[in-house]
């Protein structure tokens, strides 16, 4: 029983061998992801004024390492992930708490743990851990149970704990991303529409109260967003320069390595948050749309994988990861174009930064894993087969 429990026998599926798994890996998706990371390499090369140092080389090395992590994760049986979902969640939550405590002790506001090799941001990892935990929870409840408000208490708690910790850091952007991503999972799991309406209404009512709890710089960012010209040399400066860079790029851009806004340092943080601006300045709208197209294709693959998956856990993980990718993309690009307030969200796989890439690649590994194990049936409990 214990041994056979690892076999999915419902449709008489034999356990997949490593070779079979490798063959059924979605290579198109891997290619897409690599292309996006390749764009990142080019842009980081440009950001350093045509030098692979200091960013491009490290970006490539990280991608190589993360690629192996991704494929490894994809190879792991999906049932391992559903079993480890809560444990992983608790571990990452503990890390978040650790960061919080370290901050309290007197190291100032910190968001990462220094592991020597990399600086790990638990809040980034939490985005994936939360997807896994929520997917596991909703995998185990029927549509009728979802209709029961009491059922939702556990997943709400799963969201609330990390959200509060992240807010305390304070990292409003990540907290909102977690909420949005989780909201999407709730929605996909069948939580009734009226409950969303209720939450949205309550949320709007709470805006004036929440405003009181925002930090000064957060308030400033929102105010600046509402009227960027009010302070062109202060907080509005970044977004104004970003818009100038984008606009002056025009249809076809100024050419690779020729973005005057970026190379003369008018553009802030061009290797991280504002890297899309630089891309669109140098390659114009054509380049910007091409890059958006690559992401849309990636997201479309994620959607297809989710739809074709036979387990609710797999579906929710696939859509959860895809939505996380989408949120990164949307928030970052909308921010640099002045559509939403400035929040520190990187452009996935392109911006320079280790944790964000690792997080995204773990997520994509899970997505690929779902694709490979799409036909594996998983018991309600998540442990036993049906």
């Amino acid at each position, binding site marked *: 029983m214990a041994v056979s429990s690892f076999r999915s026998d419902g449709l008489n599926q034999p356990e997949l061998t490593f070779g079979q798994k490798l063959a059924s890996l979605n290579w198109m998706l891997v290619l897409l992801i690599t292309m996006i990371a390749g764009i990142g390499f080019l842009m980081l090369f440009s950001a350093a004024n045509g030098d692979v140092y200091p960013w491009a080389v490290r970006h490539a090395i990280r991608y190589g390492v993360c690629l192996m992590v991704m494929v490894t994760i994809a190879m792991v049986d999906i049932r391992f992930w559903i079993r480890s979902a809560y444990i992983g969640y608790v571990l990452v939550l503990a890390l978040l708490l650790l960061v919080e405590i370290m901050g309290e002790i007197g190291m100032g506001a910190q968001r990462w743990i220094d592991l020597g090799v990399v600086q790990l941001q638990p809040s980034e990892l939490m985005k994936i851990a939360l997807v896994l935990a929520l997917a596991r929870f909703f995998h185990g409840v029927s*549509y009728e149970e979802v209709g029961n408000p009491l059922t939702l208490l556990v997943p709400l708690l799963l969201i609330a704990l990390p959200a509060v910790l992240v807010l305390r850091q304070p990292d409003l952007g990540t907290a909102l991303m977690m909420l949005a991503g989780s909201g999407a999972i709730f929605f996909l799991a069948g939580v009734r529409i009226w409950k969303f309406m209720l939450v949205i209404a309550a949320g709007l009512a709470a805006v004036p109260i929440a405003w009181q709890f925002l930090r000064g710089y957060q308030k400033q960012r929102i105010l600046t967003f509402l009227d960027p010209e009010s302070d062109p040399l202060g907080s509005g400066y970044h977004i104004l320069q970003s818009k*100038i860079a984008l*606009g*002056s*790029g025009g249809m076809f851009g100024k050419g690779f390595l020729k973005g005057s*806004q970026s190379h003369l340092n008018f553009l802030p943080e061009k290797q991280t948050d504002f890297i899309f601006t630089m891309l669109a300045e140098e390659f114009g709208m054509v380049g910007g749309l091409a890059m958006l197209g690559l*992401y849309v294709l990636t997201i479309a693959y994620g959607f297809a994988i989710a739809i074709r998956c036979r387990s609710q856990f797999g*579906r929710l993980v696939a859509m959860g990861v895809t939505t996380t990718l989408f949120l990164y993309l*949307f928030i970052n690009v909308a921010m640099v174009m002045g559509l939403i307030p400035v929040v520190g969200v990187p452009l996935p796989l392109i911006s320079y930064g280790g944790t964000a890439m690792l997080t995204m690649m773990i997520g994509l590994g899970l997505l690929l894993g779902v694709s490979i194990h799409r036909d594996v049936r998983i018991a309600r409990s998540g442990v036993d087969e*049906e």
Partner: protein
Amino acid sequence: MLKSSEQDVQKVFTRRALVLAGAKLSLVGALAARLYYLQVVEAEKFELLSRDNQFNLELLPPIRGRILDRNGTPLADNQDNFRVEIVREQTDDVALTLDKLASIIEVQEWDVRRVLKDVKRKRAFVPVTVVENLSREEIARVAVNAPYLPGIRIEVGRSRRYPFGEAAVHVTGYVAAVSESELTGDPVLELPDFRIGKNGIEKSHDKAMRGTAGQRQVEVNAIGRIIRKLPGDEGQPGEDVRLTIDVQLQRFANERLSRGQANRLPTDDPRAQAALGQASADVVEAHIDRATVLVDDDGAVVEPESGAAVVIDVHSGELLALSSVPGYDPNPFNHGLSAKDWERLLSNPRAPLNNKAVTGQYPPGSTFKMLTCLAALDAGLASADTRFFCPGHLELGDTRFHCWKRPGHGWLDMKAALAQSCDVYMYELGKRMGIDKIHAMGKRLGLGGKLGIDLPGEREGLMPSRDWKLATRGVPWQQGETLVSSIGQGFVLTTPLQLATMTARMVNGGFKVKPTLVKRPATGGGDAAATFESTGLDPRHLEEIRLAMSEVVNGDRGTARGVQGSEDDVKIGGKTGTAQVRRITMAERLAGITKNEDRPWAHRDHALFVGFGPVEAPRYAVATVVEHGGGGSTMAAPIASDILREAIRIDPLRGGLTRRGTPAGDPLQEADQQGGSRDSADRG
């Protein structure tokens, strides 16, 4: 049951996933739309803003035109101003580098402190000036040691230089930083190093000498560091202005004028030391950094005179010297004069800032008498043979008008009256013709109006008339005032420039020469008849006047016979004048003060002399005013005759006369070595 629930869940998931995908797609669509809006619709606006960011327009100030004298010697030019700068980011230790620099050239402690403060305030790549106005030798020393002076660099700027300093200051004027009120919106005026003409030729020809600024685009980054300089328009350097002034004569006139009757001695001369030993502390202090001392015949230190001298070419109207003393050094204005120094210039009673040659208005005194005679001759009311008896005074109504010679001159004709400067003779002429004829003659000879010289602040002087008095004073003209006017006193006021012009018009054959300071190519080759209209005066009358003026100097009884010179000297003519500034009051008379020298300086008479030479073929006219200098014969005539003879001596057309040796380090000699045209002109 379980199966159906499973299917429910999947159905809901699929439906909602589609909704979610649709939402995502529309959000990405919004991003694409925004991208289109920014990069296509608004592209032009942002393109402009981006260029604005990327490029700054840098103005290249034009090189200011020079001021040259008639022989090409620069009176104002541009000197390379070498300065040493330090760039913080290029050196590890600013203080250490400055220390090393100080061991190579002189660096004031004060400068070190200023630099250390400045480099902290400014961005790391912005150069900070350490020392300015370095000599070529100092520059060479810094350049040789450059490898040991990281962050130190040598830059060249330009500053205005006046090699002759105060000798030509009233002609050249000076330049200084642009003041708020002079800003016209021309951006070149806002450059920190830009200088604008504030006085003299620098002011009147400012526009032409300024040139046009060049400009180029400079690529800068977000913090203002210059990344790249693009080639641009070099601009147009300003035009040189060539003057009619002969700086050698100008300097001679200045020196001669300020010396007056005293002797100029080197400060270390024993007689100078002895004189200074007796002088008051104030006087000694005033001489501390002077190389020479003026000592009078009694061995006392005297102040330099205050006055003006004008030398004019009687045929062309070109001014060869326009001297006004005391002067001031125009060089410090370039970098800004200290408030204390400015205050000192303003409060000096001898008004060094005033160009007395064109802005000083003096009663002409007896130098006016030729004009009175000419007016009478022209009106047909007198001839050269007309004789009057001078008993020492003339009664008019119940007023007695005195002659300067109380016992009287006796019987005189016109020539003798001018030679001996008889007042009564002029009273008689004035009484016969009235003020308006004198007024008209004054106008014809250039008095009572601006002559249109290229210098700021020119004054009109005053030629009174009946109409003038009624209009300005509201009371009718009195005959007594005519008598006073006929000897150049009363209301009559003239500038030294007008007196020189008047004299020139009397001796050049009667042409209305206009004084000019700036050489123009088409001046009719110095031929007055071809350039100027006639005064309409009878040449025979002018001849009488010319001979009478010769008699003043060369006659046995002439008032200026003291400046006759020897047989070999060029024969000159002229007329002395002593203009009363204040009558000697009854109180002074009672106190026994009747002599000019006994009165306070500001109450003493002005000494005047107008002259021309050579008598046979007049070429130059001179007018000299020594403020409160006493007598025209004793003070003004010697000065004016020396200046006039010097003008004739150095006249290149006369030839054969060698120039006086000039001391070493003299700007004139420098100009010669640089290939000035002067030598060849002299030999020609």
